[in-house]
């Protein structure tokens, strides 16, 4: 016989109520089920009004992040039976305004992504006829880790600084800026530094390190931020001591 488990799910229906509440649902706890399967079971069989985002069910689209028992996780990559005997508490990602039920408002994050110019900036473009830019596996390795971000925003939910200071550009976006800064094809470091060195940029981070702990893709945004700080400090000293030199 399949055991059962209770899910306590955060509900917020702005059309009908001003305050959120929790609904309890009892679901079967199948061996292969992830949390997301249980939510789908609820939606299909018990309560069609439960709302949440999901798509790939293979941990790569980044839609299904939620707080499970207080921790930010991808619900499609978290097995249900880990939480036996239950109950399991499911809430929307922390630190974001909630649109409805488990769906958070993410346009703040989307806006910040664009702000750091996440594209290759070149003074001179190489023409396509001249083939590819040469990039050795080691050069690729320099930024590869930072290019693995799936924009799931778990790191924002884990970051107390972002919780206190929503202006903070935050872990994933800084890692993305680093992804381009460290790419041998890119020449846009300077432009990005103007943005990242502002008040709400890297200096907000006091190194809690929790962002790297929760990241499902081992992007290590905390490391990206620290590396960036060192680089920015070096640049600052250089420009102070050798104002005639060009900053990188």
């Amino acid at each position, binding site marked *: 016989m399949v055991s059962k488990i209770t899910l306590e799910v955060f509900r*917020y229906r*702005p*059309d009908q109520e*001003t*305050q*959120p509440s929790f609904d309890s649902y009892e679901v079967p706890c199948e061996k292969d089920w992830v949390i997301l399967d249980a939510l789908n079971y609820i939606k299909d069989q018990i309560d069609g009004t439960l709302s949440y985002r999901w798509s790939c069910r293979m941990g790569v689209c980044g839609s299904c992040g939620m707080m499970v028992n*207080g921790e930010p996780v991808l619900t499609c990559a978290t097995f249900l039976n880990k939480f036996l005997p239950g109950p399991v508490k499911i809430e929307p990602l*922390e630190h974001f*305004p*909630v*649109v409805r039920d488990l769906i958070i*408002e993410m*346009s703040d994050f*989307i*806006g910040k992504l*664009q*702000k750091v110019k996440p594209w290759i900036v070149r003074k001179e473009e190489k023409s396509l006829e001249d083939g590819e830019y040469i990039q050795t596996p*080691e050069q690729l*390795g320099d930024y590869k880790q930072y290019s693995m971000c799936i924009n799931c925003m778990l790191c924002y939910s*884990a970051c*107390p600084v972002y*919780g*206190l200071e929503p202006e903070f550009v935050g872990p994933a976006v800084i890692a993305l800026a680093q992804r381009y800064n460290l790419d041998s094809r890119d020449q846009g470091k300077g432009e990005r530094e103007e943005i990242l060195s502002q008040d709400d940029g890297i200096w907000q981070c*006091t*190194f*809690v*390190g*929790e962002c790297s*702990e929760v990241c499902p893709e081992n992007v*290590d945004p*905390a*490391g990206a931020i*620290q*590396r960036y*700080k*060192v680089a920015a400090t070096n640049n600052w000293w250089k420009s102070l001591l050798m104002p005639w030199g060009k900053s990188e």
Partner: protein
Amino acid sequence: MFKSSRFPIYYKGHPRMFVKDKPIFWWALKWVHARFIIRELTSVPVAFYAIILILQIRALSLGPEAYANFTNWLKTPLSLSLHVISFLFVIYHSVTWFNLAPKAIVIRIGKNRIPGLVITGLNYVAWAIFSVAIAWLFLNLDNLM
């Protein structure tokens, strides 16, 4: 703020969103957050040390009597316990700082990246060497003079 999405309209017909209030002691609810607050607080003892140093120099400049008074105060239980607490905080600050060093510094030899543990280890070794050197300097100060 950004143009590519239809940001303003998003809010227009939109029913209110729910924003959670942060309780004052939110950071106490989770160990990582408590750790974060503690680390933020370590800045206080660091400042405390700095002030003591300034006061000490000031006492020195005021003459031998003032300096003696000051060193006597340093020996009071209050001052000693403050020092012990500060010392622990500063150690905590330093340890967390060193553990983070490999995140901030990437060194390559040829094709290989130096592993984080080595960088952390080197930092600790440097720390130990400096501490021993300073301690030696102090303990032998009288002999040298």
